[in-house]
């Protein structure tokens, strides 16, 4: 199991007046090479769950093992070190830095890893070629089209060859064509052995045939119909 959560809860601002119980008793396992969709309305705890799977913060209680590593109460630094080796992120609106070039954006995760410029360029070019946007490498990311931006975001999630891809509402601001294209690329990645978790409430995503399983989150719990 690449992702293994048992009885995971997350409470924000614990012990304070503004305490929020975001997740309660989540059990979830995801096998390697499968594609899972987390479905639910906004505010359901979907993003919190994604953040725990993505090693952004640890759960308040329960066990979470990502790529065979227990996350419970790891200091932030170790979560970061683990995250950059295992998780590739694709954000809502892609979170690309518009003033940097496409190449610079894609190689951002490699800088703190101490990868030399030459190797960085080489790895980025391989990915850019694969997604057919090599000609955009030196363009500022703010000046390319939405479809290209999407592929840049995916390339960035793959640059360190991470086994898990997490996508947070990737299609929320895309038209149907681009959304389809996105899912097509995800399908390719799944075929290449990546484990993919997508948080989305877009039927184009959770009804897509490539999705192995859809998990519905409601009020911080897994909803069993």
């Amino acid at each position, binding site marked *: 199991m690449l992702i293994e959560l048992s009885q995971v809860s997350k409470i924000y601002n614990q012990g304070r007046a503004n305490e929020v119980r975001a997740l309660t008793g989540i059990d979830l396992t995801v096998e390697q090479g499968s594609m899972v969709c987390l479905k639910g309305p906004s505010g359901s705890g979907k993003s919190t769950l994604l953040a725990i799977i993505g090693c*952004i913060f640890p759960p308040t209680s329960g066990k979470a093992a990502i790529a065979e590593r227990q996350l419970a109460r790891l200091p*932030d630094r170790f979560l970061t070190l683990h995250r950059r080796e295992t998780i590739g992120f694709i954000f809502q609106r892609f979170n690309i830095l518009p003033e940097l070039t496409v190449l610079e954006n894609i190689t951002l995760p490699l800088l*703190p890893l101490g990868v030399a410029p030459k190797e960085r360029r080489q790895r980025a070019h391989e990915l850019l070629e694969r997604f057919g946007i090599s000609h955009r490498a030196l363009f500022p990311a703010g000046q390319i089209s939405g479809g290209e931006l999407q592929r840049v975001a995916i390339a960035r999630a793959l640059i360190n060859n991470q086994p898990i891809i997490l996508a947070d509402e990737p299609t929320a601001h895309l038209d149907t064509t681009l959304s389809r294209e996105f899912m097509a690329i995800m399908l390719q990645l799944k075929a290449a052995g990546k484990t993919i978790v997508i948080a989305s409430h877009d039927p184009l995503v959770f009804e897509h045939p490539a999705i192995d399983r859809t998990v519905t989150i409601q009020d911080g719990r897994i909803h069993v119909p």
Partner: protein
Amino acid sequence: MARHNLEKQLNILEYALSSLWRHRLKSLSVLLVFGAVIFLLASFQMVTQALSDKAKQVLVHTPEITLQKMSAGRQEAIPLAYGDKLAGIFGIRRVVPRIWGYYFDEVRLANYTVMGLEVAEMPEGARLDTTLAKGTMPRPGDDAQGWAVIGYSITNALDLAGRDTFSLFRPDLSLKPFVVRGEFSRDTDILTNDLIVMNLADARDLFAIPAGLVTDLCVYVANPTEIETIAKKISETLPGVRVLTRPQIQKTYQVVFGWRSGFGSICLLSALAAFVILAWDKASGLSPEERREIAILKILGWETSDILAVRFWESVIVSGLACLVGMTAAYIHVVYYAASLFRPVLMGWSVLRPNLHLLPRLAAGDILLILAFTVLPYLAATVIPAWRSATVPADSALGG
């Protein structure tokens, strides 16, 4: 491991450079203000240093020991006969009487320094010629009267461009004429700018000092390492006499210059303080774009310490460039513009402003001093804002 760390720091440095470039307007404004502060401090430091160097260099020409008679705590004329009493002290090369005083020119409202001595009697009198831009000092055996060797400002003040004679008033308001036989070189301006050197007898005549008296006695010593010993012996032989040694005078100059420079630095520190506050302000205000950028970096695997390193490199680059710009400008200001901004403050002791050519020497220590005044406070002012920005939580890049 070490290679990996080095590569990582280089990558972070690269990112810091690109980040500075992306915010070039902000970086440039900080750079300019910081550069200006460094420019002020560095010019000040260089001017005082060049001045004190110059004084030191010129003081080499002064006698090793100067004797003055004190009475009721004030200086008065010293009898020439005192010089004879020193005959027994071993190590004294020569005693040269001197009249040193100030002449106030009521027409031009300026003070001139007058020095009357037998140049030929000075052990290295002939070498004084090297300090002259034109003319010569009298040779031994040459007992010409009524001559004067003058500094640059005197030439101007007395309007001596086309002629070489001038007159000064005796205390009884009768005129005493002089012929200019030499002019001091501009290199010694700090001491000679307002100086008139003349024969001892002429000086006595000008100031109406009775025969047998002078203002001070200059003692030349054979071995410079014995100055202190001889000075002590002299003060034992002549109890009522003030004994000034050259090293002491040098130290006094040093204190004066150090004090002036310190005083100036305090004034400039307020400028620095203002800048540091500005730097803090600039660094601590985090725009939503910056927050978003840091959150993205962190979610992509940048550690808090990596962001701190980016901020550190940014500060180092900005302050390094500002130092380079500020110090270069200061050097140009001091050398080519003779520190025109500070001269009134630094050389205000004379009505005639010496027109100096200054050449500061910059040792590593002086650069370190300027760094300590400027870069360190800047780094300190940016460290806490840098930490604030580095601790933006990664999850703020998630969600809508």
